[in-house]
């Protein structure tokens, strides 16, 4: 067996390993921290790429931890959705931390930089683990790592808002974890399995005997993951947490972390609980309405925000609604759109947060009303912001367009044109709050701090350019990811 055969495990373990090493590096070889983090993330990216290639050419495969086959051991199931998610995580995580190398010393105290890299690697590893794992309890463990790490990269910033937001986030996600664990207990109780594949095989038979157990477990799962994914009524923690955090944290939290819980939910709903269950419980209908509310209300709240990062945070609530809309509609195209939106939104929201971070870095201004003319003085970040905003609205030749295309198509497929209209209305709302910013940025006279911004490091500019180019490239050539996503969807729906 070559080393390549172990890549599923190594993709997760290598970041973990170097995360353990990072405090020591921070102590003795401070300058190596950033480089190591980059190298490790690059490794995860290429290894995800390799896995994706392998999955695309020879189909999904499994990796047994310690050689123990399920149901006894823990299994990694490398399928299309998993590699897609892994690629998204490492593909977005890498540029974000590249940006962070220059931005973080600006936002954080010197002493905690090493910890930041540690936490970042742990966060990445846990997300990759969630993407790849095929075991319910292992999922829970990764969810916990992810929850603590994502709180920590907020509270690491020395400001009382950050600490408060992190605490709120932590408490709510602890409630979520509790619900998740109870759900796991209920499921384990009636099936005796933890592995997704075995659960899926056992559940239909069990359903007749213990229907309430399964329903309660399903409800708890939805609540548990819903809290963490900021699904509409459970989103209260998000705006504070995402807006007060350092910019790279905001980017990765909004772009990846909430999405990964959505991926977990997709896995559970479509792989573990077969469609028949979904039909029995009004889960899908509930998801649909919750996501609709999320989309509309999230956008409404975003319109009235004054703080640029807060506005982006509320917009994330709306955007996660798209993902769940796709999940709830459950038609091939809709699910495809939802999954695709995970990637697209990760890219554009990360870019938007980083661009906002660049504004704050150079000018110290956070208020939308004071960002007039920023496009004149800082054309590249403002241009990136403009592209991101266009993608949010779903203008063609940006990647956001394709998410909406498939979601709307899927809504029609599912015979629910109403939800296609929801997608459109929300695009309009997106336009209402994003476009004035761009207009003000480019067509107003710069004043105050905006008129004389500080110099933006080339690395930060470069990251924004790369992400902006990504939004356009994936807008022009959606087929680059669509092959993977479409296969993932087919596998999930059993087509």
């Amino acid at each position, binding site marked *: 067996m070559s080393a390549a055969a172990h890549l599923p495990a190594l993709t997760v373990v290598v970041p973990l*390993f170097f995360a353990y090493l990072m405090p020591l590096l921070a102590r003795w070889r401070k300058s190596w921290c950033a480089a190591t983090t980059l190298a490790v993330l690059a490794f995860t990216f290429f290894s995800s790429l390799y896995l994706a290639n392998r999955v695309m050419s020879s189909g999904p495969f499994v990796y047994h*931890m*310690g*050689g123990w086959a399920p149901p006894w051991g823990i299994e990694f199931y490398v399928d299309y959705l998993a590699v897609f998610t892994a690629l998204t995580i490492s593909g977005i995580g890498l540029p974000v931390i590249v940006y962070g190398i220059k931005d973080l010393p600006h936002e954080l105290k010197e002493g905690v930089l090493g910890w930041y890299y540690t936490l970042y690697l742990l966060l990445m590893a846990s997300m990759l683990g969630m993407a790849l794992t095929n075991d319910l309890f292992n999922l829970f463990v990764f969810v916990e790592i992810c929850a603590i790490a994502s709180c920590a990269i907020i509270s690491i910033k020395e400001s009382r808002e950050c600490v408060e937001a992190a605490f709120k986030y932590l408490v709510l996600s602890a409630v979520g974890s509790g619900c998740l664990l109870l759900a796991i207990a209920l499921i384990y109780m009636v099936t005796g399995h933890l592995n997704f594949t075995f659960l899926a095989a056992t559940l239909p038979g069990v359903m007749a005997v213990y229907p309430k157990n399964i329903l309660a477990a399903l409800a708890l799962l939805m609540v548990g993951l819903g809290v963490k994914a900021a699904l509409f009524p459970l989103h209260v923690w998000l705006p504070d947490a995402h807006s007060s955090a350092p910019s790279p944290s905001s980017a990765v939290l909004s772009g990846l972390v909430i999405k990964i819980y959505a991926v977990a939910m997709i896995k559970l709903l479509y792989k573990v609980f077969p469609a028949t269950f979904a039909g029995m419980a009004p889960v899908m209908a509930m998801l649909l309405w919750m996501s609709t509310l999320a989309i509309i209300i999230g956008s409404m709240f975003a319109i009235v925000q004054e703080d640029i990062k807060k506005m982006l945070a509320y917009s994330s609530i709306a955007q996660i609604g798209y993902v769940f809309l796709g999940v709830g509609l459950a038609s091939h195209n809709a699910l495809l759109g939802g999954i695709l939106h995970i990637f697209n939104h990760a890219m554009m929201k990360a870019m938007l947060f980083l661009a906002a971070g660049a504004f704050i870095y150079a000018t110290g201004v956070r208020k939308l009303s004071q960002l007039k003319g920023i496009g004149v003085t800082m054309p590249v970040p403002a241009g990136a912001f403009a592209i991101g905003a266009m993608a949010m609205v779903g203008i063609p030749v940006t990647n956001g367009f394709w998410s909406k295309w498939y979601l709307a198509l899927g809504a029609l497929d599912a015979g629910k044109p109403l939800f296609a209209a929801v997608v459109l209305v929300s695009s309009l709302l997106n336009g209402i709050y994003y476009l004035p910013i761009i207009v003000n940025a480019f067509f107003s006279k710069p004043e105050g701090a905006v008129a004389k911004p500080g110099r933006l490091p080339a690395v930060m500019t470069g990251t924004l350019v790369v992400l902006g180019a990504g939004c356009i490239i994936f807008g022009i050539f959606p087929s680059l990811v669509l092959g993977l996503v479409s296969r993932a969807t087919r596998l999930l729906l059993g087509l």
Partner: protein
Amino acid sequence: MEDIIVRYISRIIVPFVQLYGLYVILHGHLSPGGGFSGGAIFAASMILYALSFNLSAGTKKLSHDVSSVLESGGALIFAGMGLLAVLLGTNFLGNRAAGFPLGIPGNLFSGGAIMVITFGVGIKVASTMITLFYSLIEGEGHSHD
């Protein structure tokens, strides 16, 4: 807590508790217990020691440098064993399959990687708990760097 009785008793009791903690860690694969409980017991004893004297005495026993090495080291041992298994040509975290000697069941040195991993976890838990306690009690973190 500068009470002489407390000090005296804890001076007697702490070594035993530490010994018990070590025992629990090392016999984790034979009897109830293991890295987590043993490490926690060990940590509790250290904290007790620190509490009954004063904090700086406890700090001397386990400097931040050492504790940080131990934290990372414990986890690195664990992950290292897993990676070693990969190097030995089996799946990550393989034990018997990787060819680690299992020994005679029931002996202290048995179970191959299990033994090492338990030990690593024990170190990790103990040092983590101690560090957490100190960082909470110290509050102002000037001493860590």
